[in-house]
């Protein structure tokens, strides 16, 4: 078989073809994974309720200094609905597993 030297337009065509093909499955797969917000940008938004760096005035629980496993478990259970909270169920579902792990590390430090 004759090996064609890939030139710019062929690469473009291939990309286009791949894109068209993957639209059939999911649109998202065609795009490179968008970078996630930095952990600081994710975590400081929680302070509106949980206090600066997770130091809250009760009854909202403080979330700083928690063992990472506990933090992750709480967030995953809120996300799946395993743990019921009229507030956190709605919030937790917006975060990826990676976001949750990163926030667990972030709040552990304070």
């Amino acid at each position, binding site marked *: 078989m004759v090996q064609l030297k890939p030139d710019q337009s062929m690469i473009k065509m291939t990309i286009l073809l791949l894109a068209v093909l993957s639209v059939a499955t999911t649109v998202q797969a065609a795009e490179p994974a968008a*970078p996630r*917000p930095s952990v600081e940008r*994710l975590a400081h*938004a929680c302070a509106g*309720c949980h206090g600066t760096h997770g130091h809250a005035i009760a009854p909202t629980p403080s979330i700083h200094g928690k063992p990472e496993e506990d933090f992750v478990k709480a967030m995953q259970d809120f996300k799946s609905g395993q743990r019921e909270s*009229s507030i956190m169920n*709605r*919030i937790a579902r917006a*975060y990826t597993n990676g976001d949750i792990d990163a926030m667990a590390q972030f709040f552990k430090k304070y």
Partner: protein
Amino acid sequence: MSGITRRTFLKSAGTVGALSLLGCTVAPSKGAKAKVVIIGGGYGGSTAAKYLKLFDPSLDVTLIEKRKTYYSCPGSNEVISGWHDLGWLVRSREGLTTRLGVNLVRAKVVEIDPQKRIVTLKDGSEIPYDRLVLSPGVDMRFDAIEGYDLKTSKLIPHAWKAGKQTTLLLNQLKAMRDGGVVIITAPAGPYRCPPGPYERASLIANYLKRSKPRSKVIIVDAKTQFSKQALFLKGWQDLYPGMVEWVSSEKVGQIDHINPSKLIVATEFNNFRASVLNVIPPQKAGWLARKTELADHSRWCPVDPRSFESTLIPNIHIIGDACIATPMPKSAFSANSQAKICAAAIVDLLNGRQPGPPSLINHCYSFLAPDYAISINGVYEYSVAERQLVATGGGETPMDADRGREAEFARSWRENITADTFEG
């Protein structure tokens, strides 16, 4: 003014200008601390000052606020219901100075010069900036409803800025006879605190039920639906049956005019006569933002939500109620969250880094009674395709949720957001 004289500042500003032509954003010349000036010490501006200092303690951060006393709007409906005194709404920013080293200046900013990067105070003094943050809040549109102007608002309150206006409405409710009718007019969006008019109706009903049980509240709405509608309607039915009536513009048309001496609200198809009238007019970005031409035809300020930098004038960031951050509502929680993204972006930009993708939260609680609250929230990210924020989570309080527990969390929220924003 700390450190830099006007001349050396202009010199270094010139350098920044020349370098940014080369396509990079540059920190001010070595040795000089970067100067960030914030105008407006409400929820947005105070949070921005605090987080700029947390992110980079070496920054020279100046917060300029024109009013001696800041009264929080969140909580003001509870004051109107008689649960607390007006003094309970006062927020102090002392901790921003004592604990974090923010320069607090009490003055009205009358002019911004985006070319020279200088703000001018009412007494003529000038403060230079490398980056400027504006969180001036809203102004009422006194040209929007015939019969309702600034002068009328001293007699017929809007109470949409807390303080004197809150007291005016409270006193009128106290003076009203039992059997009276309170009318609240609600504007079309976007306006400060979308669920606010309905929380107010609930808490006025709460007061009336205790003190004047034969009275009622009518909301004359420019909209045909409203925030947390199903939850509010259920709450009114459970707590205040027959006392709160919501009138959609679908039924009575838009407000045509107000007759201030007779306390009549005239819509296209109806007249409503009030014993106490509360007009919440349409709103616009605060005066300074519009004067500086940071607002577009909508009267609000377009920004890039990754940095909250104006899309119209560089080096000026607008946060809080004055900016367009669709689909985030105009709330104290939004202002607090936007301020943090803005602060992080400013630190990046001053260090020649491109700000990364943002993440924001809004959460608005509404009280219907001391042991009964509901909420709506959203988690937001930037969509490159849509070039704006999109909600990736959030929703309303589930219908079957415990309203008493939400009320406890709502009270807790207020303490936590106060500490997180004002360091007080």
